[in-house]
């Protein structure tokens, strides 16, 4: 009954169609005319397929009713109302990194910082690049993420106007991470942003990019983000996503990786915020010998819903992929791990592993974990495993028997479970920042002071 109502409820879709109609003429004035056919096609496709329901296999565990039944307005311009100080808590201490700040989806140069980058490295606004140098974008923008199949990607593409553009020339190493801060200031009614990120790395280059989603203030909002990450042959790329938006935020984001020969992509996802989050990771190992390491930590309490969807596509021989996801679920929260691995016919000698470990801290917390292997090659190694459990009583007793109070023992064990994912992060200032966030999240995490 509810489901039928959701399917027929077009409030969100109608709202987006209306916004599209009113915004479209302004975009064509802004020197972005070449994108117009793409946007229109994307909007038309979304109108055609609509938003997914739990009857779609890929959305089985996530009821989108809260999003689908909400009429979102485009988030208003907000540059004037934010001062640099309010963004300080989000900065990574001890990191002289490039920071690109976006307010309600628009680049805010006044709040962004850009130390000297190696020659030829670009890190800035996609809107600006669309106006100045479309040649740099055309081969990649909206070429990798398939909006024909994915409703939210179609939506993002229909409203594609701004976001971050990072490009690293061949053979260049960018030492400091590039921090992209997507800030939403909710309005009086529900608002939506559609940030688009494009990262292109030349052959044999190296860079780390952080996408960090935050809200300033309360109010319903939707962040619907798409990132296309083109990893050149032999390149080493780190990608971080931090979801720490407000408890009234909806968040749908997709990382679409396109990996060249012998390239290495390491993706870290940390989900802590939001009411309903759907995180898609979709790397395509297109070049021979490429590898991708996909790490995730999701921590939910209250009534939060966090859905992690992986689609790892092995398209060439000798590629390796590793998925390691850990979930901690408290209260009445609901976590999902859906790990798809697709091994194409020619992808012989594929080595794919998937692990999902979950801790349930309460009776009412829930986890759905689902591996899905689709193997069309005959010489491959694919393994998967999932665990769901509680904090180990033996371990608690062991710690207590050494004098550590029970509450501290619990905090310590929880932190250790999550900390394992943080240890995998190579960029130290980011890791330290997240260690602090995680210890603040852990119940009685203050007891960890001096221990962790």
């Amino acid at each position, binding site marked *: 009954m509810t489901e039928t109502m959701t399917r027929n409820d077009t409030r969100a879709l109608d709202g987006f169609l209306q916004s599209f109609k009113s915004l479209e003429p302004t975009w064509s004035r802004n020197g972005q005319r070449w994108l117009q056919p793409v946007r229109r096609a994307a909007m038309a496709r979304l109108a055609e397929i609509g938003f997914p329901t739990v009857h779609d296999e890929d959305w089985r565990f996530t009821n989108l009713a809260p999003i689908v039944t909400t009429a979102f307005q485009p988030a208003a311009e907000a540059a004037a109302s934010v001062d640099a100080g309010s963004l300080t808590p989000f900065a990574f201490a001890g990191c002289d990194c490039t920071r690109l700040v976006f307010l309600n989806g628009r680049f805010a140069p006044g709040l962004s910082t850009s130390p000297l980058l190696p020659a030829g490295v670009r890190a800035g606004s996609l809107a600006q690049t669309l106006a100045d140098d479309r040649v740099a974008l055309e081969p990649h923008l909206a070429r990798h993420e398939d909006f024909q199949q994915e409703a939210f990607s179609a939506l993002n593409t229909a409203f594609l106007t701004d976001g971050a553009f990072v490009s690293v020339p061949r053979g260049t190493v960018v030492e400091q991470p590039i921090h992209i801060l997507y800030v939403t200031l909710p309005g009086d009614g529900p608002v939506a942003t559609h940030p688009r990120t494009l990262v292109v790395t030349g052959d044999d280059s190296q860079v780390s990019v952080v996408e960090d989603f935050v809200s300033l203030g309360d109010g319903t909002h939707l962040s619907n983000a798409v990132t296309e990450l083109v990893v050149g042959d032999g390149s080493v790329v780190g990608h971080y996503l931090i979801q720490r938006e407000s408890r009234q935020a909806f968040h749908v984001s997709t990382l679409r990786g396109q990996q060249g020969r012998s390239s290495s992509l390491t993706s870290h996802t940390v989900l802590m915020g939001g009411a309903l989050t759907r995180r898609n990771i979709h790397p395509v190992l297109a070049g021979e010998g490429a590898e991708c390491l996909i790490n995730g930590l999701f921590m939910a309490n209250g009534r939060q819903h966090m859905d992690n969807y992986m689609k790892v596509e092995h398209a060439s021989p000798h590629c390796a992929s590793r998925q390691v996801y850990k979930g901690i679920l408290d209260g009445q929260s609901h976590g999902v791990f859906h790990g798809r691995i697709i091994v194409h016919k020619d992808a012989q000698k594929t080595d794919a592993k998937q692990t999902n470990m979950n801790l349930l801290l309460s009776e009412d917390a829930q986890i759905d974990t689902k591996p899905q292997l689709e193997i069309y090659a005959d010489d491959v190694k694919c393994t998967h495993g999932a665990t769901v459990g509680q904090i180990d009583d033996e371990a608690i007793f062991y*710690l*207590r*028997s*050494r004098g550590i109070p029970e509450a501290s023992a619990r905090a310590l064990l929880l932190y250790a479970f999550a900390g394992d994912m943080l240890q995998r992060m190579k960029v130290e200032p980011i890791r330290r920042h997240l260690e602090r966030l995680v210890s603040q999240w852990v119940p009685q995490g203050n007891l960890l002071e001096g221990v962790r």
Partner: protein
Amino acid sequence: MLEIKNLHAKINGREILKGVDLTVRAGEVHSIMGPNGSGKSTLAQVLAGRESYEITHGEVLYRGKNLLEMSPEERACEGVFLAFQYPVEIPGVNNTYFLKAAVNAIRKYHGQEELDAMDFLALMKNKMKLLDMDEGLLNRSVNEGFSGGEKKRNEIFHMAVLQPTLAILDETDSGLDIDAMKIVANGVNALRSPDRAMLVVTHYQRLLNYIVPDFVHVLVDGRIVRSGGKELALELEEQGYVGIEAEATQLTKV
């Protein structure tokens, strides 16, 4: 120091301890021996405060205080230490951090200032030498990937750092080769002192060649059926538990 009176304990409805009486004075080393399933480990765990056991009768006084009313961490802070038969692996918790948290929790309990990193490191280094520990083990997660011998050595290392008043060693010898056993025994012997007592739970007499007890007790079917000096252990070694078990059955029937 420790007075156990008519202690009964059960788990999952099954009675394991059926009236244990034992008195341990400061400076003494007592060995509890007995066949498998006699309740040795249960006694050790109950004394450390394992909550899955239900105490149905009896009392335990530790330095005049009711031990059974204390939480496991309170017992630890009051100086009770259990070296586990099966030390728990705790992935992600660094051995050093863990011990520092333990030392400082105990110091805090006694109103002492917490040790700073430097003092703590000095303490660790000192105790590590005692047990011939590889420094690498300190930076690893607690017991994770340790060999059986490394785990047992780590337990005694914890004991050396925490300096308990009453140390309970639960089958610390099981799974140790002779070299490891000597090291562990040396570590234990170094801690023997007039104001400290030890309860050494073991299945085999072997360990008692190195840790020589003042008293030996034989636990059979949840009760101490014989007590004696160190020579009792040797007698058991020769005759096995069979004779004593038969005696115990006789006693029960009478």
